Structures are given as C-alpha cells and as structure tokens.
C-alpha cells in the first residue's frame, strides 16, 4: 500500500516536471522563432514607413514644381552656364556685344581642344571647366569701359582674366590718341551635368531663398542669338522643278 502511494507521488512529481519541461520547450522552441519573426516584421514595418515618408515628401515636392518655370530656368542656366564648351555661343555673344557698342571686334584666339570624347566626358561630370578665349576690340576709351561692364552680364558667363590696352595715335599728331586697342582674355565656364539621378528614393535637394535669388540673377544675363551664316553651297540642279519655272 505504501509502495503504491509512493509510486503515485513519484508519478505526480514526474508530471510536474513534464509540465515544467513542456513550458520551457514552448518558450524556447516556439516563442523564439515567433518573437524573432515579429521583430523582423516590426523592423521591416519601421523601414517601410520611413521609406514611404521619404518618397511621399519627394513626390509631393516634385508634383509641386512648376514645370514651365523649371523649363525656363534650365534653358537660361544652359545659356549662361552651359554643360558643353560654349565655343559658338561665346563667339556670337562677343561679336554681337561689340557690334552693339560700335567697336571693331577681331583677333580671336581660341583653343577649344577636344569637343567631344567619351572618356573625357566621364571624367568631367560635375566638374567645373574653363575655356580661355582671347579677342581684340578697338574703339574709344569710354566705349571699351562700357563694353567691359556689359560683358559681365552677357551669357555665357565669363570673367576677364587679362587686359592689355594700347593706344593708336594719329600719324600726323602723335600726341593725339584716336583709338584704344583692348586685348582681352576671358575665361568662359562650363560644367557637364550629372549623368544619372541615382536611386528613386534618393532625396531631391530643395531650393532655398539664396538659390532662388541666384536663379533670379541668372535672368539678368543678356543672351545673344547665335547668327549662323546661311549661304547656298555646292552644285545646283538646274532641272529641278522650282528652278525650271524661273528659267
């Protein structure tokens, strides 16, 4: 009788131990993965919320941009501060500006170098480059001074680097200065634009008040149309229908 009681007790104690072990098993084997999965999902949720907030800010900003205004600004920026060597634009602007001031324009020295090279373009992305350009204007002193003043507000953006003034005197009266010859060396700048936008979630930089003021300053630059000579060259088909009528 006593033996059966003691065995019952042992069984009961074993049952307790079994319960205890089952609890532990449930805690470590089942709870572990469930909690780690929950943690992972919560972390994902946090990063997704952050991504969504970032994308929403970007989207809101991009949708708020005035497309007409940004187009205008990009065009003006490209005229004032171009992405490629502004060889033709520079020549056109300077010749037009000197014409406006009734100055004779000539003796151009320009070494544009390589105009297009894939390897150079890759190296140049986002880097500021300059193009040195020399020319001569002839006129009276005050007009040259005015020309130089206007040069600072002419597109493409240039900086006067070197200046040489010489006087052309009257051959009969040597003391009488008739013309001033200004040899001017200017630096024109260009900067190739970035080739890629980066990832979609990359934030777009906002324009602050200082940037807006700079962009407004951009519009104070005067741009001259590049006048290209138009002349018919090569052979002319005399039997073409348009010409037959005239003949």
């Amino acid at each position, binding site marked *: 009788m006593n033996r059966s009681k003691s065995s019952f007790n042992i069984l009961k104690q074993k049952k307790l131990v079994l319960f205890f072990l089952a609890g532990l098993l449930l805690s470590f084997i089942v709870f572990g993965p*469930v909690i780690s999965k929950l943690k992972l999902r919560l972390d994902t949720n946090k990063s997704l919320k952050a991504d*969504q907030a970032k994308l929403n800010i970007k989207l809101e900003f991009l*949708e708020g941009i005035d497309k007409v205004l940004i187009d205008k*600004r990009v065009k003006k920026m490209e005229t004032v501060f171009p992405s490629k060597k502004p060889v033709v634009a520079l020549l056109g602007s300077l010749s037009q500006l000197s014409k406006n001031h009734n100055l004779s324009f000539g003796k151009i020295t320009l070494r544009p170098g390589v105009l297009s090279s894939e390897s150079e373009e890759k190296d140049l992305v986002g880097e500021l480059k300059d193009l040195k350009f020399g020319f001569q204007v002839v006129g009276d002193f005050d007009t040259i001074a005015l020309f130089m003043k206007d040069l600072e507000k002419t597109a493409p953006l240039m900086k006067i*680097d070197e200046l040489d003034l010489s006087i052309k005197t009257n051959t009969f009266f*040597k003391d009488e200065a008739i013309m001033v010859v200004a040899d001017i060396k200017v630096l024109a700048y260009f900067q190739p634009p970035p080739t890629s936008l980066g990832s979609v979630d990359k934030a777009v930089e906002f324009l602050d008040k200082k*940037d807006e003021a700079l962009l407004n300053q951009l519009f104070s630059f005067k741009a001259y149309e590049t006048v290209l000579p138009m002349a018919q060259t090569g052979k002319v088909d005399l039997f073409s229908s348009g010409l037959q009528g005239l003949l």
Partner: protein
Amino acid sequence: MDINLYSKKIRKINKKQKLIILLTRSLLAWLIFLGAVMLSITAYSLMVNKKNLKLDGQIKIAKERIENLSDVESKQVYLTGKLKTFEGLIKSQEIHNAVIETVFSLIPDGTAINGFQVETTGEISLSGSVPNYQTLNLLFDRVQDSRAYKLGITKAVVNSISLGKDGSLSFDLTISLDIKV
C-alpha cells in the same frame, strides 16, 4: 476513545498533496497563459505583415509616380548641381569686375596698359605708358584719391618711371586693392 496515531503523518501528506495540486494548476495556468500570449503575438505578427504588404504596395505606387516625374527630377538635380558652382563663379566674377572697374576709373584717357592680370587677391601690377607728364600726374592723383572708386586702394607703390624716345612716359605701379565684395 479513538487515538489517531497517523494524524500528524496524514496532515503532512495532505499538505504535500495540496502543494502538488497547486503547483500543477499553476503550471497549467502558466501554460494556458503562454499559449494565449503566443496566439496574440502570432495574430499581431500577422497584422504587421499585412500592414507591411500594404505599405509595400503603396511604396511601389509612389515609386512609379516618381519615375513618371523623372524629367522634372532631372531638371531639379541639374539646377541644384549647377547652382553650387554658379554661386562661387558669380562671387569671383563680382571681384574681377570690381577690380576691372577700379582700374578703368584710375587710368586717364590716353593711357596704354601692358597686359595686366586680374588677381582676386587684390594686388595688381600695372605697367604701361602715358603720352605726357600731365596724364601721369592725373594718374597719380587718381591713385592717391581712392575714395571715388569701387574698391579702395590700401597701398600703391611706384616701381619705376622712364622716359621714352618719343616723349612718352612708361610707368610700373603695384596697387593693393581692398577686396570686399
């Protein structure tokens, strides 16, 4: 009269059994509690997963809308990228122009200047020639009266003056300009 000789032992056994029952019930309750916690965690985890799937969908839509606006974005990137450099260029251009304007205000009509380099440091080496003494005198007067010019002259040194065969006077000046633009 009955004398219970096992009363003490029975009480001890009873106490032990009660304790075992209590422990068993507590363990059962604990297991039930753990099960309930696990169920709630699983339900919460599933709910978070559902939210994640929804967020993922919304992100995909937002990305598509941003990609549709890539033209505007590229223009914005272009402008911000160029503006940083443009700002520096404008500042240095302002200094250059102020230097040029000052030098032009200094030199009298009829003065020839030999290739002067526009330096943003403010130190200008000015050499050239004037047709006569009056013009040279006017140039020196202007150098001494710096208040009327865009940039003030902090120092002016006459390095040399020489008389040419044709009667013209050659000069060599070093002028320090007060660069504050």
